[in-house]
């Protein structure tokens, strides 16, 4: 039985640019088969196997669907419409893991030196300093700010090592966005997201997404860079035990570097968003 709170959320189900006519993309959401297709009038529709149309919204290059009654509008990402930014769809990658573990990994910096070695981090620069985390009740989102980390190659366009500043944002249960120092514009942030489609509690399709200030780097290079980063994480995500994200303390041991993850788990538990989570300690 899937909790109503889970059904009432928005989830990504396709890249808008790749949606074709009926039957379109045959996929699943929260374990239920769905079809994502273009109607004759050109609108995008999402239907269950029983032919039931569900709520759809198009945003940030992706099709978002809600199987229940949307509890709120899809989160705002104003940067996506900001002039001068390049929006880069980085495809979709399937991962045999809980959708929540995929999001949590995206919020984590301490793994950079070991998993994204010589790109997003490198020994001996492993220390994660204090940063600020809050659950913002006004927007109902988890935010981490003032995160700093030394990075050998922070972006495709970065020339050398820099201390990068990050802000992290959990905008929906399975969608997270980060804002990081832009190597090309000192007063702007690069925006990188992952939108995670929960196929099942332990299986997901992950759509990396970028909105960057970078007029120079060819599109394919930007896609390769982001796919490289995400695929370095994939073998980690498929080898965490248990597969589901434990929400009860005691099962896993956080430190100060993990405050974003602690807040994310607390927020999920408080909202009853337990799809892909292990609630009772095994």
């Amino acid at each position, binding site marked *: 039985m899937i909790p109503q709170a889970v059904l009432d959320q928005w989830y990504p189900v396709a890249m808008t640019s790749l949606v074709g006519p009926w039957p379109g993309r045959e996929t699943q959401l929260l374990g239920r088969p769905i079809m994502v297709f273009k109607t004759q009038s050109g609108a995008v529709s999402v239907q269950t196997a029983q032919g039931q149309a569900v709520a759809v919204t198009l945003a940030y290059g992706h099709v978002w669907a809600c199987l229940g009654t949307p509890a709120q509008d899809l989160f705002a990402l104003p940067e996506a419409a900001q002039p001068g930014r390049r929006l880069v769809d980085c495809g979709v990658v399937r991962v045999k893991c809980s959708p929540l573990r995929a999001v949590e990994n995206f919020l984590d910096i301490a793994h950079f030196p070991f998993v994204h070695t010589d790109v997003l981090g490198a020994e001996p620069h492993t220390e994660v300093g204090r940063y600020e985390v809050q659950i913002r009740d006004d927007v109902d989102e988890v935010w981490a700010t003032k995160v700093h980390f030394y990075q050998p190659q922070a972006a495709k366009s970065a020339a050398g090592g820099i201390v990068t500043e990050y802000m992290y944002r959990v905008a929906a249960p399975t969608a997270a966005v980060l804002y990081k120092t832009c190597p090309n514009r000192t007063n702007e942030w690069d925006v990188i997201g992952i939108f995670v489609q929960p196929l099942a509690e332990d299986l997901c399709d992950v759509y990396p997404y970028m909105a960057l200030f970078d007029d120079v780097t060819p599109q394919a290079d930007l896609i390769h860079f982001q796919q490289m980063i995400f695929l370095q994480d*994939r073998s980690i995500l498929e080898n965490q035990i248990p597969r589901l994200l434990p929400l009860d303390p005691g099962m896993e041991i956080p430190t100060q570097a993990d405050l974003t993850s602690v807040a994310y788990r607390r927020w999920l538990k408080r909202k009853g968003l337990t799809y892909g989570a292990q609630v009772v300690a095994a």
Partner: protein
Amino acid sequence: MILYDYILSASCYKVRLMAALLGIKLDLVAVDFHPGRAHKSAAFRDLNPAGSIPVLVDGDLVLTESTAMLVYLAQIAGPQWLGEASPQSAARVQNWLAFSGRLNSSLGLARLHDMLHFPADITACRTAGHLCLRELEAHLTQVRLEGRIFLEGTAPSIADIACFPNVALAPDGGVELRDYPSVRLWQRAVRSLPQFIEMPGIHRLHDLKPAPHSGAAA
């Protein structure tokens, strides 16, 4: 020398790895294989009608098979990587190059299925992959009994580089390597080669570098 490249392709990685081990600098041209399917575009098929990657271009030479690229790079910069000169050795190296094609159509396809939604009979791919791994394990068991570690002769060769990527990436396609101890030790030997480079799915062997802290002395 230009390599039309995709970061997640095991076959492209074969060529990048060989070039790195030989100290050859490649000019990489990123091809939007996924999601753009740029390798199937008209422009790309003017270069390679098969619409496959990698493609290696050096002046007038255009190569579209990764094992041929390994031969070419080794001929230019490291003939010792071609194996020993005997007819038997030369033929055995060719045998492994062809075998690497079987790895690609089994383990490689399983990986593309599990990761990028490629259509495939996943059970058949994995079964064929395990069959390949058993052959590899049997050979490497024999090799170790003779006090060696690489596939052919006493030194690494293009045979090892041709076979390594799809084997190392097998878990991406749901094929675990746990039951192949000699394959595990062979992979470690390849990963320990000077100037070895990784690709996503193959992590750095951090143990090759000393710990920057004192905790490892505990």
